[in-house]
C-alpha cells in the first residue's frame, strides 16, 4: 500500500528537481500527444525545443524572438508570483496587460505626431498606472467588500477585451487607416516606438524592465520587510495576523504591483513587437504567465528561467506549426500539461512516499 507522510519541512532538493521532472514528463506525454496527431514525436520535440535555438536555418530569426516573448512573460509572472506567495490570486493579468497597452498607446496617440523625449517615459508611466488601476478594482473590492479577487480579476479580462475592441474601432482608430479597425502603428512614430536596443538580439525596453523586475523582486523577498510579510502571510496566515501584518495593505500591494507590471508588459508590447492596438492584440501572455510563475517556483530567478523556457515553447510551437503542420492549439495543451505535471510533482516536495502498511501508533 502506498501512503503519504507529511514532511516536517518542504524538501529543498525536490523543490529544484520537480520542475525538471515536470518538463521531462511533459515532453514524454506531449510526444505521445503528437504521435496521436500523426507526427513523429522525436521530430516534434526537437522542432520545439532545439531547432529555434540551434537550427542553422531558423536560429537567426527565432533566437531574438526568445527575448521578445520571454520579456512580457517574466514581467507579468514576477508580479503574479508575489501575490501567489501570499495567497492572493490575481488571475486577470491578461486584462491588466490590455489596459496598460491601451493607456500607453493612448498617450502616444494623443501626442502624435509631436517628436519629444518625454513621450516614451510618459507612456511607460501611463501603462503602469493603467494596469495598476485595473488591478485595483479587484483589490479594493476585496478589501472593502470581501469580494473574491479570483472571479473579479478574471471577469475583468472580458471587460478589458471588449473595451479594447471598442477603442480599436473608435477612439484610437487610425484616421488614415481607410476605415480598418486598429490604431496607428507606433513603429512608424519614433518618439513612441520601443525599438530593439541591440540589433539582432530581440532586447527591447520591456526585456530590460523584466530583468530589473527580477532583481527587485529578489531583493524585496529576501531583504525587505514587505517581502517577509508576503512570505509569512502565505505560509502561516494566522501567525501573520498575530504578528500584525496588515492584510489590507498586503492585498492592495500585491494586486497593485502585479497589475502595474502586467500593464508595463502590455505597453512595451504595443509600442514594440505588436506596434498597434488591434482587436486581437492580446495573445494570452497573462494566462501563460501563471504557468511561468509556478514553473519558476514563485522564485524570481526560477521565473527568469521558466519564462525563457515557456518562450521557447511558443517559438518552437510556431516553428512546428510551420514545419510539421502541428496545430497551434497543441502547444496550448502542451503548456497546460506542464502545469499539471508540476503541481503533481509538488507532492514529493511536501510529502514522503511510504510503501507498506502503516504501523499503529
Amino acid at each position: 500500500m502506498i501512503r503519504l507522510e507529511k514532511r516536517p519541512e518542504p524538501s529543498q532538493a525536490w523543490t529544484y528537481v520537480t520542475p525538471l521532472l515536470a518538463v521531462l514528463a511533459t515532453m514524454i506525454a506531449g510526444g505521445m500527444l503528437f504521435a496521436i496527431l500523426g507526427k513523429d514525436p522525436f521530430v516534434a520535440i526537437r522542432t520545439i525545443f532545439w531547432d529555434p535555438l540551434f537550427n542553422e536555418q531558423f536560429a537567426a530569426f527565432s533566437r531574438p524572438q526568445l527575448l521578445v516573448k520571454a520579456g512580457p512573460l517574466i514581467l507579468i509572472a514576477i508580479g503574479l508570483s508575489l501575490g501567489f506567495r501570499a495567497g492572493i490570486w490575481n488571475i486577470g493579468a491578461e486584462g491588466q496587460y490590455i489596459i496598460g497597452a491601451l493607456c500607453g498607446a493612448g498617450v502616444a496617440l494623443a501626442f502624435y505626431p509631436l517628436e519629444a523625449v518625454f513621450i516614451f517615459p510618459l507612456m511607460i508611466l501611463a501603462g503602469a498606472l493603467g494596469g495598476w488601476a485595473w488591478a485595483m478594482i479587484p483589490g479594493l473590492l476585496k478589501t472593502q467588500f470581501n469580494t473574491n479577487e479570483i472571479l473579479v480579476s478574471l471577469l475583468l479580462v472580458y471587460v478589458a477585451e471588449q473595451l479594447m475592441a471598442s477603442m480599436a474601432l473608435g477612439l484610437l482608430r487610425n484616421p488614415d487607416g481607410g476605415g480598418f479597425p486598429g490604431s496607428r502603428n507606433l513603429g512608424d512614430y519614433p518618439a513612441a516606438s520601443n525599438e530593439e536596443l541591440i540589433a539582432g538580439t530581440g532586447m527591447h525596453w520591456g526585456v530590460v524592465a523584466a530583468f530589473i523586475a527580477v532583481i527587485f523582486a529578489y531583493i524585496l523577498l529576501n531583504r525587505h520587510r514587505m517581502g517577509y510579510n508576503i512570505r509569512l502571510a502565505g505560509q502561516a496566515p494566522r501567525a501573520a495576523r498575530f504578528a500584525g501584518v496588515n492584510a489590507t495593505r498586503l492585498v492592495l500591494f500585491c494586486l497593485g504591483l502585479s497589475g502595474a507590471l502586467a500593464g508595463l508588459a502590455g505597453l512595451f508590447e504595443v509600442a514594440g513587437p505588436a506596434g498597434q492596438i488591434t482587436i486581437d492584440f492580446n495573445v494570452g501572455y497573462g494566462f501563460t504567465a501563471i504557468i511561468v510563475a509556478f514553473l519558476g517556483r514563485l522564485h524570481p530567478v526560477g521565473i527568469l528561467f521558466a519564462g525563457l523556457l515557456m518562450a521557447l515553447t511558443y517559438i518552437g510551437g510556431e516553428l512546428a506549426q510551420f514545419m510539421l503542420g502541428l496545430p497551434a492549439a497543441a502547444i496550448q495543451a502542451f503548456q497546460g500539461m506542464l502545469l499539471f505535471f508540476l503541481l503533481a510533482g509538488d507532492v514529493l516536495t511536501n510529502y514522503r512516499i511510504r510503501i507498506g502498511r502503516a504501523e499503529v501508533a
Partner: protein
Amino acid sequence: MDLSSIDPILLIAALIVAATPILLAAIGELVVEKAGVLNLGVEGMMITGAICGFAVAVETQNPALGFIGAALGGAALSLIFGFLTQYLLSNQVATGLALTLFGLGISALIGQAYIGVKPPITADLDIPLLSDVPVIGPILFQHNLMVYLSLGIVAGVWYLLKYTRVGLVLRAVGENHDAAHALGYKVVRIRMLAIAFGGACAGLGGAYLSLIRVPQWTEGMTAGAGWIALAIVVFASWKPWRVLLGAYLFGGITVLQLNLQAAGLKIPVEYLSMSPYLITILVLVIMSADRSRAALNAPAALGRPFHASS
C-alpha cells in the same frame, strides 16, 4: 431605437435557453463546493464538454449521444483535477487554473476538424395542448429536453442535499472533513464522486452551447461562461434554488443586451457585450459585502486539502 421590436414572450423563452448552460455548470459546481472542493476549472470542463459533445453528435448524427459524450468528457477532465488535488494534495486554486488552461488547449486541438461543421439539430419538445397555450406555451413548453433536464438536476440536487442521507454525508465532508473521516466516511472517495458530477454537469452545459445555443464550434466559445457559473454559486449562497434564480437572471441580462443591440440602442455594441460581466461583478460585491451571511453559508472546509494522517 425600436423597442417594440422586442417581443417579451420570445425574450423570456430565449432567456431560458441562454441561462441553461450556466445553470448546468453552476449546479454541478455547487455540489463540488458543498463537498468542500473548489474547482476553478469549470471553464475548461465546459469547453471540453462543448467539443466532445459536438464531435460525438456530428460523428453519430445523434444529439443525445453527443450530450452523453459531453458529460463523459467533462467528467474525465475533472478527474484529472480530482486525482491531483485529492490524491496528490496539490493546491486547488492552481490546479483549477491549470485545468482551464489545459481544457482550452485540448478543446481547440480536438475542434480543428469541426470548424464550420453543422451539428445535427436537437429537436424541441412539442407537447400537445400545453405547447399551444398562449403566452405560457412558448415560454415553458416549447423547449428541448435539456432545458427540462437541467431543471430536473436542480430539483434533484436540492432534494438530495436537503432530505437524503447521501446529501447529509456530502455536506458533512464539506463542512468538516476531519470529523467525517473520524466517523468512517471515505472523504476522498466522496469528493472524487462530487468532482466527477461537477465535471459532467459542466460538460453538459458546454455541449448545450455548441449543440443548441450557437450551434456550431468555435475556439474559446464558452467566453467566460464557466467563470460566471462560479460567480453564480457564490451569488446563490450555495443554495440550489438560488442557483436557478441567478442563472436565469444572468440569462435575462444576456438576452436583453443582445436584443438591445439588435434594436439599435445608441450604446456601442462592445459596452453592451461587457454588461453581463460587469453585472456579475456587481452581484458578487453585493452578496459578499454582508460578511456574516456570506461566511455562514460557505462550506467550512471549502478549498482546504484533506490528508488523513492516521
